[in-house]
């Protein structure tokens, strides 16, 4: 985690270089909630950036936004203080492109969030094109569409996983229906270091975790979850994990030797990963996540269930027992951030409407769900995660990026 040592009103401003932060755990370090949450936040700049669910990255005072403008996917670099555009890259993506018709509510993407590391920006477009850009000037350093090695290079609902950058490699699951590869590419050259060839991609981002003392890349694929060796891509374990209409979308989390998975109408299941075949440790159907990924705080799992038209929950991650489930009709999705004492959730309505989105703040406690009045932060559905740094909160809604400040 790269932390800029600027103390501002008791908060540490923090970089947010990738989907769910630098460690992929959606954890904000050093966030100090206000003694009393205001009814509304102070609105700063607002910029029209384009469509899509992609969460911006924030590194050293610059935002990297990945969005659709017309038939192009654009990568924008903005000055985080002013919203001023510093550079842009664009790629036409509409030719020979078709998503499953039921995906229309979510638009044509992009859904994947940029990752920034070592002065490079990595984006993964809706059609499965991986691009590496120079973070300073936006120059394309390399770009792969993987068409030469796969059939349709994107899954039916559109590529959605975000690039994972580690140890000089960019890891991403590429491919389409039933056929894909998790590839590790050299960040400098774009050349392949290794490839695991197998199932088609799901929509969740790979995580790097230590399971049973062993570092692993864990990925939800189209029909499975797999653990790979990050050094060479060797398959360490796999288990079948299917959701209706192939919608594996939830970021896995790891507690000790448990890998916790969820998916639409699949409940939540923890698998024990030992040396042999993964075994189910616990399962609950009380809650199920669809596109929202959970937070692990100690051995408590907080999340947003699709049941009852949207409710929050807190589970014992060791047993699957629910401490509480709370609310109903909270929205169709919620992007959760672990802000220490509290959890920040950007609750969003259905993506195809024009209903507003709200920031819901609740105590990170298993005893009870203590919610504060929701704070409206967008006039339209906001499916990207909020990006929080110090007292600044960047919200990407349907087409705009807005800076809000906690007074």
């Amino acid at each position: 985690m790269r932390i800029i040592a600027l103390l501002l009103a008791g908060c540490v401003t923090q970089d947010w270089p990738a989907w769910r932060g630098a460690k992929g755990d959606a954890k904000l370090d050093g966030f100090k909630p206000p003694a009393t949450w205001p009814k509304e936040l102070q609105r700063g700049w607002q910029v029209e950036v384009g469509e899509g669910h992609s969460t911006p990255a924030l590194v050293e005072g610059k935002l990297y936004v990945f969005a659709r403008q017309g038939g192009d996917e654009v990568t924008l670099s903005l000055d985080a203080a002013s919203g001023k555009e510093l550079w842009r890259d664009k790629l036409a993506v509409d030719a020979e492109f078709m998503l499953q018709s039921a995906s229309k509510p979510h638009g044509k993407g992009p859904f994947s969030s940029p990752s920034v590391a070592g002065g490079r920006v990595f984006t993964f477009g809706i059609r499965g094109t991986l691009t590496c850009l120079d973070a300073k000037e936006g120059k394309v350093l390399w770009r792969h569409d993987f068409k030469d090695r796969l059939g349709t290079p994107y899954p039916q609902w559109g590529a959605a996983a975000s690039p994972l950058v580690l140890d000089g490699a960019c890891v991403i699951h590429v491919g389409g229906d039933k056929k894909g590869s998790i590839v590790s590419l050299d960040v400098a050259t774009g050349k392949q270091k290794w490839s695991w060839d197998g199932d088609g991609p799901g929509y969740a981002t790979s995580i790097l975790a230590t399971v049973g003392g062993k570092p692993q890349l864990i990925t939800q694929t189209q029909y499975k979850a797999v653990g790979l060796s990050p050094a060479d891509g060797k398959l360490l374990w796999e288990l079948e994990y299917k959701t209706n209409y192939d919608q594996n979308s939830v970021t896995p989390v790891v507690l000790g030797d448990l890998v916790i998975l969820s998916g639409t109408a699949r409940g939540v299941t923890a698998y024990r990963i030992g040396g042999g075949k993964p075994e189910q440790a616990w399962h609950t159907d009380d809650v199920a996540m669809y596109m929202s990924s959970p937070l692990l705080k100690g051995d408590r799992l907080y999340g947003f269930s699709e049941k009852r038209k949207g409710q929050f929950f807190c589970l014992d991650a060791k047993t699957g027992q629910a401490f509480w489930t709370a609310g109903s009709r909270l929205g169709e999705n919620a992007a959760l951030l672990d802000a220490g004492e509290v959890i920040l959730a950007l609750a969003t309505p259905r993506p195809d409407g024009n209903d507003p989105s709200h920031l819901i703040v609740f105590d990170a406690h298993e005893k009870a769900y203590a919610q504060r009045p929701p704070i409206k932060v967008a006039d339209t559905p906001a499916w990207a995660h909020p990006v929080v740094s110090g007292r600044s909160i960047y919200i990407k809604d349907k087409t705009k990026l807005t800076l809000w400040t906690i007074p």
Partner: protein
Amino acid sequence: MNRLSLVTVSLLAACGTSSGPPANEPARRSATVETREGGGGGDWPEWGRTPSKNMMSEAKNLPFELDPGKLKPDGTPDLATAKNALWAVKMGSQTYGNPAVANGRLYVGTNNEGRGDPRFKGDYSRVVCLEAATGKEIWTLTIPKLGTGKVGDWEFLGVCSHPTVVENRVYVMTNRCEVICLDVNGLADGNQGVQDEANYMAFVGTTPGKPVEMKPTDADIIWRYDMIYELGVFPHNITAGSPLVVGDIVYLSTSNGVTYDHTELPSPKSPALIALNRKIAERPGVTPAEMLVGEEASRISKRIFHGAWTGPAWGEVGGKGVLLFPGPDGFAYAFDPNPVKDADGFGIFPEKWRYDCNPPDLRYKNGDKTQPLKYATLGGGPSEIIATPVFYKGRFYAPIGQDPEHRPGPGNYTCIDLATGKKVWDVRMDRSLSTSSIVDDLIYTGDLSGWLTCIDANKGTILWRYNTLAEIWSSTLVADGKVYVGNKDGMLSVFATDRMKKLADELGPGLEVEIESGKLVLKKGEKAAREISGDEVGQIFREAKFPAELHCSPIVAQGVLYVATMRHLYAFKAGAK
């Protein structure tokens, strides 16, 4: 031309109180429509129980309180933790083919997941025959996938058609866009009809494979009719629907539809509705062309919005049969079920009338007939009829709706006089694919926003509604003074119909029911018109949480309530453990 003898079929004895082993006996099934009185509810041999497709039963003593209990670590139901459950079994991972029960056997469509038969590894579809009293498996039809992927036979969806059981035959549509007729006894009593089961089950897509070794626990296929080969049908995503059998004739929708991306209709000349003669189909050496005795020629397929997934219901006007067809173009159709030959010798159902169930503002921009609206999965615009229409007291009842993947949107419920084709009333509601239950002139139906709605069948007034808080893909069941409805969250809600009727009479129509902290709150507008608490709540409302989605509809047969989740099948009986 093989015509129906309507007089004959209407004189057949009433269906369904028999139990015990299936018998090779003469037709006991009636074409009598609407509700069948008496008999303790009898069997549930087809979608909607009878040809009128009214999701109701005369069954008595059904459990108000039920609990599926927990699952064991291997995913099988743990009966020790259940309440009023006779038995429960694990199904495939996706179970859309609603159960049918006849003569002591239950037939249900599911997929192959978790089955463990070494002959069939991977994605297959299945029709499973179980002993209705115990849930013990008797035989299984295993159907290979077409290999089209999501275009025409979506992976893992299994058999989505509700079987229809008549005498010793089961009729069902397969994922391969076939109509298939099975022997209720499976191969245990020898192989009747076609002899190529071993080759059929060996297909890999459309390529023949090595014949599968057959067992007595495999299905016995009597005949098959392939709608892709014979009619040029282009099934959209999957083949669904339920065969309607009246006399010797099997009526069904073809699932013809649009391309994967919804941009084209590849087979606009294929019929959306056909009829096969099931007796001719059993003759040795018969050709498919001889099986086909009727089809619509109303050019419905030129106007299909999405897919012709829903079959017809049967009604009567002046003692004569009428086919009520839910148009995949949003129109209600009434056809004479007696085909007449056209110039080319094809049997054609004369169209008696059609009625557009889409109100003008959904069909046309601002209601202006010169500006038709395009079909849209999102937002406004017209929808098809995907629920099966119900014939009740001389009228056609159905909502418009869309594939649930298209999400909630504006809908409309229409009541049409079957004799004239004129609208009696319509009322706005959300898109729905729920087939209605109509009892005592009250309609119960669900919708994609999760509302269970009770409508006055004579006036179209909404008496009360309840938000189940998750999409309803299945249909209601009304029996024994209760309405049962399941939703996507796996929640089965049960209301006492008489109590709710009394409350609506007392407080006036338009009630919205909410459950708040154990209280039943009846709201009119934003105001609470009545609050009910304590033990009385349990006399009016119950709910049971199932471990998977309730996309199948609850049914009742011989006093047993069957509830299929996506992954399990439960049998409940009041007083069972």
